[in-house]
């Protein structure tokens, strides 16, 4: 019989065990199932069950029959530039909110509204706003002499992906702003006042005090949004369906096409694993550089 000491030492593990087991099952089982399927030929258009072991054929097919490279490039562009833009726009708005100017209370309430919209709704809204014949945005831009592509922003290969990023930025910048504003509020007034007494400029105050103190929360925000943007599907589906051509294809849209339109389960599983590997590498590199001097 274990001693009281041993029992007490094991008690936390025992209490945690059910949650850990459920969590592992929920994570590992689908991944394991996908890994197994990625080595089988299984296309629901031809058979309801896996037909035969196909080695690495599905992985080879990902590159041969789907626009994987274009989708990866677009996804990285969208996630990278989108996160960067949303972070800095959000930071600017957070700093404005922090100035306690008149009307900022109302601004805070209004700001969160785009974030509460479902992406599909935001997508439909902007599809109409960007409509080349009669859409509000092209009309306004043409009014101030900004060149609007004749095919419209969503129909032009050079602007389609940018337009998706724009809509996502419209929707998610307020989220950055609100969270960063909360972070700014948590910075001690004494620290800021001490710096001011030492003669720090506003710029110095931001770069050397506020930003480093916001770093943990900012790093987390950036990581979460990057991953969300990396998995962008709704806006792509509603706004451009990945087009024109492959100009706005993303990896998630590729997965949707292969899995839920072409029903190629084996190929989709292989693509899923490639995406998992790519995202894991990016996120772990990011965490390594952000937290290399900290324990987390």
């Amino acid at each position, binding site marked *: 019989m274990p001693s009281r000491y041993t029992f007490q030492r094991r008690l936390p593990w025992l209490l945690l065990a059910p949650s850990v087991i459920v969590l592992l099952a929920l994570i590992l089982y689908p991944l394991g199932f996908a890994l197994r399927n990625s080595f089988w030929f299984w296309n629901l258009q*031809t058979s309801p069950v896996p037909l035969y072991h196909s080695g690495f054929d599905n992985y080879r097919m990902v590159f*041969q029959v789907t626009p994987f490279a274009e989708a990866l490039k677009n996804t990285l562009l969208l996630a990278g530039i989108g996160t960067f833009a949303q972070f800095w726009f959000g930071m600017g708005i957070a700093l404005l909110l922090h100035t306690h100017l008149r009307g900022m209370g109302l601004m805070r309430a209004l700001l969160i509204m785009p974030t509460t919209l479902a992406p599909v709704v935001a997508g439909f809204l902007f599809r109409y706003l960007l409509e*080349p014949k009669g859409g509000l945005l092209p009309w306004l831009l043409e009014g101030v002499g900004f060149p609007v*592509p004749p095919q419209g922003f969503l129909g032009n290969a050079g602007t389609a992906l940018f337009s998706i990023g724009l809509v996502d930025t419209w929707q998610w910048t307020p989220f950055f702003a609100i969270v960063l504003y909360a972070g700014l509020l948590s910075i001690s007034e004494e620290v800021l006042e001490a710096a001011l007494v030492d003669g720090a400029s506003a710029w110095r105050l931001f770069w050397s005090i506020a930003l480093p103190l916001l770093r943990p929360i900012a790093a987390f925000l950036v990581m979460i949004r990057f991953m969300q943007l990396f998995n962008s599907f709704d806006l792509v589906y509603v706004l451009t369906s990945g*087009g*024109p051509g492959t100009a706005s294809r993303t990896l998630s849209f590729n997965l949707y096409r292969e899995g*839920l*339109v*072409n029903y*190629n389960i084996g190929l989709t599983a292989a693509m899923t694993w490639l995406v998992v590997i790519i995202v894991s590498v990016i996120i772990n590199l990011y965490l390594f550089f952000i937290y290399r001097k900290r324990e987390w």
Partner: protein
Amino acid sequence: MSKQKLSRRDFLKVGGAAGAALASATPLGNLARVAAQSDQTINVLTVGDPWNLALQNVTDQFTEATGITVNIETLGYEALQARLINSFLTKSADADVIAVDQMWISQMADNGWIRSLDDFISMDSDAHFDDFLPECLYSLSTWRNKVWTLPIASYAQGVMYRTDLFEAAGLDPLPASVADAGDWTWEDYFGILEQINGMDLDGTSMYGTTVIGYQPVPVVHMYTGLSASYGTRWFTQFPEAPWDFTPTINSDANVAALHDWKRLYELSPPESINYLWFDAGTRYSQGDIGMFYHWTPYFYLINNEGYLTGTPSPVVDKTATAVLPTRGAGGDQVISLGGWSLGMPSTAANQEASWQFIKWATGSEAQKAMGEVNVKGHQFADFSRQSNYDDAGLKEIYPFLDTQLEMMKLGDGKVVRPPAPIYTSLEGVYGLQINQAMTGTVSPEQALETTQILFQNILSGNQMIPYLVESFDDTLENTKALQASLSGM
């Protein structure tokens, strides 16, 4: 959704002794037999195409006649496909009757997901199976010499053009029948487009035409209408046996068609690269398009200013319809024939009631009733039966029916968009490459060369090259023979 029904008590009151006589005599005997099973409900899963609106407006008639309550659930195209496949894989009885796109038949039939209707048809003279246009059955409903569904809405393709613009340009009316279309070619078509493109009509600068450019499915639907007419075939040999799925998509005929498709796009509004089916129809309805070709439902859909809006279009009395041109004068013509049919899942709980509904909804009377529905205008002329095309009342509502019938009779859904078991995958890459060529990212030659390679990879990867499963000589002649056999002729 239709909820009205005859109660058993009411039915017995009205029917009384006549019921026994009815039960013994077909065709009404079938209705009586089903009515005797009143309190039945069937679930019908359909797609949000215009025919569905018409069907929902007349379903009460079925309920009144049979006592069977019909629950109709309508989904978008991809949602319907996903829902059906999920229910088939989990073997759940999700619906008793389903709407089936012609491209799904091979997959559903080969996997045993839907029941063949051969036995129901052959035992039920009330089906008037011989009345169906064989081209519609061939394109929409048959696979490996069995009938799996019955057509509820058949679409061919034809030309719509502005008569006032033609008059202003000094152009003759276009041929509305094949007999008058001896020298009506695509080159003539392009010549007219170039003449009318940019013309001013009552202060409106006109575009020659409009295309449907959205990828992958919409652009394939419209492009294949042109390319099949140019002689493009997807595979070395299909649907004639033995099947050889080695792709031939980069043929000279298809390269010429894609070059001309780009010409069409250059004569269209630039934003039409992002147009879905109804975007093109709506654009024409709004009055700045001179001529275009599309699926035949747009012969009547353009009467509304927007898609099913009910607001009359400004072009409603200024439009005529014409047959599709051929590549060379008097040359062979192949028209795209598509549409929807009703089928019965293998898991359907109420098979007899399901059959009664399929037979009724695809029957001549119900189709006529659908055609007469006037909600936001008349919204259904997608008939698959000869008797509906001969109906004087329907011709009065839809004066283009003769032209449409001629297009149907030249239709071949198995050549224009072959329902090979992995068609969806092929359509995905094909649509993408056509769209790429439209953007100018790649040349037509490069786009079709890439399509050829991708087709080869997909078909080989799916064990279709070489094709080791038994082929079937899937010709219109064999469908006609099947139709005669099941009709007891």
